[in-house]
Structure formats: structure tokens, C-alpha cells
């Protein structure tokens, strides 16, 4: 390394290689990404947000919400799961015997301990998980064998992981989820909970506004700072509350004769939060959605 030129060339080559790898290649691979289709459906994913929610993303950006919240769910694995929904005409004791007698079937024989063990622990409540694991043939065999006996089962593919167990989503986040996010707000600190599916957990706009104005009025253990500057504290006109005024819980209400009215930004931010619902099954992140078939 005797001359400036050699240092320049070596540095140029090193940085240029990583530029090609981490800037150019992702642009080629993902830069032209389009909407995909939700599994077993003809619906497109993701959908463009509505106007208020699109503007709400900018309020989210401007207030630096990303400093404490992530919008990405991690997954550690996936399992095929079969659970018993209804026994039909059968009795629980007979059903247990029936299952035990079935364990000689070649597809099931390796899992007999697990399946019988699950049933031994069963206290009679429905639904109960019969098997949860990697092997899909167990699930299909059990479904086929139990159907003629009038027993109703539910076979599902479920994603697993801490984030999913916490109820922050039903599957991992994938690149397709962020197609319309500009700027993308992935976040890297979870001082507050993940917001990937906050719109599923708390779909009520009024709840979101109450939470923004006084977080501890709806989540007593919250450490979130209140965003009162997004709300206007004003006098009621002729003692009449405005229809837009926020309904607050006891202990957080404004002084008598006053009311709290959310500003446009607060309403947009709440609309954005409610729009966060990345929970559709996709090809790269499959799972069986829970259907309300009861």
C-alpha cells in the first residue's frame, strides 16, 4: 500500500462489492415487488391503506413512534396440528379406547405415545389438541380415520414462536407486508409492544384515541408517554359536548365544562394503527386461519 491510488482501489472494490450485494441485488430481487394473493383465496395482499391511515403513517413517522415500537413479528417454527372439536354421538371413554386401538396404523405407530399422552391429560373440555408436530401424515390419517366415527376434528397449520404466543400476530412478517409503507417503520427496540397486528387486537378507534391521550386509562401498566399535544383541551360550547369529544375513563376526565377533542393528526394516527393487520396467510408465511365455523 504505497500510493493513494492503491488504497482507493482496494476500498472502492470492497465497498463496491457490498453495494452490489446489499443495495443493487435487493433492488433487483424485491424492488419490483407486486401484490400477492392470499392463500386459498383470490384476495390481493397487501391492500393500499385508506387516505386517513396513509396520512397516519406520516404522523407515526413525525412523532418517532418507531423509537419504541417494532412492526415485525418473528417466528421460530410451524406445526401441523389436529384438535378434537366434537365427539358426535360417542362418549369420551369410548373415544379414548378407539384412539388407542388405532395406534397400530403404520402412520401413527411412531407417535402413539404423544397422542395417547395428550388424551390421558385431557379433562373432557373441547377442543383438545390430539397432535402437534412436523408430520403432516399423522394429521391426515387421523382426520380420515375419525371422520366415519362421526367425530369432528380440525386440522390446522400453526406458526409458533414467542411473538406469536404473545398474541402479536399469527405468522412471521414477510417482505410483502410492507409493500405500501413509505417510509418503512420496522423499528429495533420493543420498549412498547409490537404493532404488526395492533389493528386486530384493538380495532376500536376510540380505544386507540383514549390510549394516545392517556395510556394508563386503558392499560394500567403502560409506560408509554401520553401524547396530549395531539389533542385539544377546550371549553364546551354552551355546556354542550362536541360529538367529536373523546369519552374518557373516570380519573382521566378533563375539568368540568371542558372537553378533549382529538386533532386531525390524532385521528389519522389512530386510523393508521387500526389499519395494521398483517395476518393474512401467504405462500411464504402459511398458516390456517381460525374460521368462525361453529
Amino acid at each position, binding site marked *: 500500500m504505497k500510493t493513494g491510488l492503491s488504497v482507493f482501489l482496494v476500498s472502492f472494490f470492497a465497498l463496491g462489492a457490498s*453495494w452490489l450485494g446489499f443495495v443493487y441485488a435487493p433492488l433487483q430481487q424485491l424492488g419490483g415487488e407486486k401484490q400477492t394473493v392470499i392463500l386459498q383465496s383470490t384476495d390481493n395482499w397487501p391492500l393500499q391503506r385508506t387516505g386517513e391511515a396513509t396520512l397516519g403513517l406520516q404522523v407515526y413517522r*413525525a412523532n418517532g413512534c418507531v423509537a419504541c415500537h417494532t412492526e415485525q413479528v418473528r417466528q421460530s417454527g410451524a406445526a401441523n396440528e389436529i384438535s378434537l372439536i366434537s365427539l358426535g354421538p360417542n362418549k369420551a371413554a369410548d373415544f379414548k379406547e378407539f384412539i388407542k386401538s388405532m395406534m397400530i396404523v403404520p402412520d401413527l405407530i411412531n407417535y402413539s405415545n404423544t397422542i395417547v399422552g395428550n388424551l390421558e391429560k385431557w379433562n373432557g373440555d373441547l377442543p383438545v389438541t390430539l397432535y402437534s408436530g412436523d408430520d403432516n401424515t399423522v394429521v391426515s390419517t387421523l382426520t380420515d380415520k375419525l371422520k366415519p366415527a362421526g367425530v369432528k376434528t380440525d386440522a390446522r397449520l400453526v406458526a409458533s414462536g414467542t411473538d406469536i404466543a404473545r398474541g402479536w400476530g399469527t405468522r412471521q412478517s414477510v417482505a410483502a407486508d410492507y409493500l405500501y409503507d413509505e417510509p418503512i*417503520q420496522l423499528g429495533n427496540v420493543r420498549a412498547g409492544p409490537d404493532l404488526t397486528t395492533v389493528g386486530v387486537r384493538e380495532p376500536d378507534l376510540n380505544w386507540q384515541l383514549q390510549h394516545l391521550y392517556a395510556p394508563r386509562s386503558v392499560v394500567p401498566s403502560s409506560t408509554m408517554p401520553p401524547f396530549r399535544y395531539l389533542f385539544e383541551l377546550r371549553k364546551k360550547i354552551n355546556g354542550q359536548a362536541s360529538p367529536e369529544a373523546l369519552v374518557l375513563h373516570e380519573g382521566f376526565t378533563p375539568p368540568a365544562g371542558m372537553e378533549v377533542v382529538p386533532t386531525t393528526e390524532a385521528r389519522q394516527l389512530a386510523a393508521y394503527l387500526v389499519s395494521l393487520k398483517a395476518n393474512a396467510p401467504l405462500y411464504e408465511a402459511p398458516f390456517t386461519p381460525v374460521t368462525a365455523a361453529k
Partner: protein
Amino acid sequence: MNNDETKSFCASGIDASCRVPLLALFGGAVLWLVLGLVLGLAAAMSFHKPDMFANCACLNYGHAQAAANDLILYGFVIPAALGVMLWIFARLSQAPLALPIVPVVAANLWHLGVLIGTASILMGDSTGYTWLEYPRAAAVLLFAAFMLIAVSAAATMGFRANREMYPSHWFLFAALLWFAWAYSTANLFLLSGHPPRGVVQAIIGWWFANNLLFVWLGLAGIGIAFYFLPKLAGKPLASSGYALFAFLTLIFFGTWCGIPRSAPVPAWLPSTSTFAAMLSVIPVLAIAIVAWKTVRRGPFSLTFGPCCFMRFGTLSFVGSSFLYIGGYCPHGSRVLDFTWFGFAVTQWQLLGFIGMILCGAIYYILPRIMEKELPQPGLAKASFFFLVGGVLLYVVPLLVGGVLQGLKLVDDQVAFEKAGEAALMCFRISTTGQALMLVGALILLLNILILTMHWKLGLLKTAIAAVKAPLESSSAPGEVKS
């Protein structure tokens, strides 16, 4: 050569040529450091008393923390590092600074850019990309200022008397290219009006952040340390071969880190980063060996001056880099991602590693370019304790808190609130560290201000004397006439 050139006859002339540009860079940089620490304290208050800034938009955590981070990085670290770089290039070249007016103009442009950027963040006009929060107007100013300083630095390097390049040359010269390329790429793609779709924005952001926080800080900080460590130890740099090896491995492996394990992107991206992070252990170890061999058995007196700053900074580089790399381990990242751990490592890199190296360099350079001793040497020593103690008290509790929080977060039987509570006390302790650093930074600022005042007063006196002198001499013949 490192020791010879200080003895060369024109050392004071070289220092004098750096005076105005370096004062412009250092003065503003330390002022931004103080402001950044104040804003960081304000941000931390949200975790002591969440209601504190409920009615004040510009000081809520999201605004204040982003502004504080950028003030430390763009306000303090980069201009101060550029100033030290100019001085080192001039000293190594045994030539006065080339185009000295250019860095003065550039320093003012840079500080203007930082001012615009900080005001924009506080007023809610941040771009929303981590480490690129400054809007377009500020980014253009920063880039232009950087290029101007790079021209002056490269020209100074080009005029070097000894054509052989010293290891610091490689690191610092590469740093000039690195920032220009990474910063322009990130800004052109993300802030040009049509950012790429979805996660590509995040990938470019990670690439940029890694190249700035790991590679650029490493190049600049270690380049400066490789100049000062041998100088202060009174020995040559242990081995140029090792240094070259460290330089090459750092730029080839380090630049591929950056994509977090948990990122919702195609798996080849985080896998590549993990692999590169494991390989990045090599340059960090090599740098540790070079530094250790250089300072080992050298004369060492506990003066708490530049020497101690440099050693603490180099040690911090090794420590923070290992933790940074640890964050890419498949098992480590499960626990450490999304906790205060990553935040703590970044703060350690910024304040503990390059921040301390820069403070040491400023304390060393300042009396030389001003040709005047520091006004209160005792106070300067005290600032070492405040700064280093502050960094430790700031970073260590955050690291511990991050690990505790992560261990609770991965266990889905523990409620999310419990994980937050586990880190909260550590976070609150770390605030005292921020306060200590603020005191240390204020002392540094005071030193710069006093020396500047002395210099300006001296200029004023000479000017007055110059104005008075011809009057007296011209009046003398007048008297004769009358």
C-alpha cells in the same frame, strides 16, 4: 516517521495553518456534543416520568432521542473526526494544510446542515429512516461540506514529503471514500422522492447504518488511534503488516454486516451478514493485537490526558465491536434483538469508542494549534473522569438491562410488562451516566472557548497595536514640521 515529523522544523507552522479550520470544526462539534447530551437527557426523562413532555411535541422521546443520536453522530463525531484527520494528514505530510479556507467554509456549511436537520427532527419533519433522519436540505449541505473537506484532506495528503504511506493514511483515506459513497447512496435512494418499495428501504438503511457505525467509525477511530497510540507511547506502531491485514479484513468483511437476523427479508441477506460478522472478529482481534503490542511496556504515567482517552477508546472499540458482532449470532440475536442491548452497543461505539478517541485528540491538538497551554490542566483531568465514568455508567446498565429484558422477552410465559420493568431500572441508572458525560463535555467546551477567547483577544491586541503604530510614527514627522 511518526516520531520524526513532530521534531521537524515546521511543526509549529503546520499547526498554525490548521488553527482556524480546526477551531471551526472542533468548536461546533463540541457544542453539538453538549446539545446532543442535553437532548439525550431530555429523552431519557420520558422513562422517569412519562407525563413530563405530554404537552410538548418537540421533546417527546421519539423526537428528542432521534435528534440526540444524530447530534452525537453528525454534530460531534464526524466533524471532529474530520478535523483531527486534517491535522494528522498535515503532520504526516510535513506540510501545512492545503487550501485552508475550504475546510473553514465547509465547517460552517456542515454546522448549518446539522442545525437545519436537528430543528427539522424536533419539529416532526424527520424522514423516519434511522440514522438518516435529516431531511434533504440538511443532507445536501452535509454532503457538500464533507466533499469540500475531503478535497482539502486529499490535497494535504498528496503534498506529503515522504511518499511511503503510514497506516493511518490507509484508514483515514478510505474513510473519506466510505462516507461519501454510503451517504450519497442512502440519500439518493431513500430521500430522492421515489424510495424503493417496502423492505428495500430498510435493507439500504441497514447497509448504510452498518457502513457508517461499524466500518466508518472503525476506519476513522482506528486511523486516529494508530497515529496517537505510538506517538504517546514513544514507540513505533507495532507492526505495519498486522495493521494492513486489519485494514483489509475490516473493509472486506465489516462492510457485509448490517442486516439483522430477524429482518423480514429473503434469508440470504441476514445469513450473509451473520457470516460476515463472524469473519469480522479477525480485524477486531488484529487491531487489538497491534494496539496492545504498541502500548505494551511503553512508558505509561497516569496523567488522565490524551493517552488515557486513546487507550480507553481503543479498548472500547474492541469491546463494542465484539458485542456488535455478537448481535448477529443466531442464538444471541433471538434474545438480544429488539432490546436496549443494540442501543447500548451503538452508544458505546459513538461515545465510548470514537467519542473518547476524539476527546483525547482534541485535548492533544488544541494547545498545539493555539500555541497556548490549556487554561486549567486539573479541570481537563477531571473531564477524563467525568467522560469515561459517564460512558461506563451509561452503557453498562443499558447492556445489562438489554440482556435482562431479552431473557424475559423470549419466554412467552413472562408478561411483556415484566420485560419492560426488568430494563426500566437499568435505563434509569444509565441517565446518571448521561449527566456525568454532560459535565465532561461542558469542561471540554469551556477549554475550547477560553483558548479561542485568548486567541481572539490576542488578535485584537495586535490589531489595535497595528492601528496605533503608524499613527504615532506618522505624527512624529508632523510634529517636526510644525
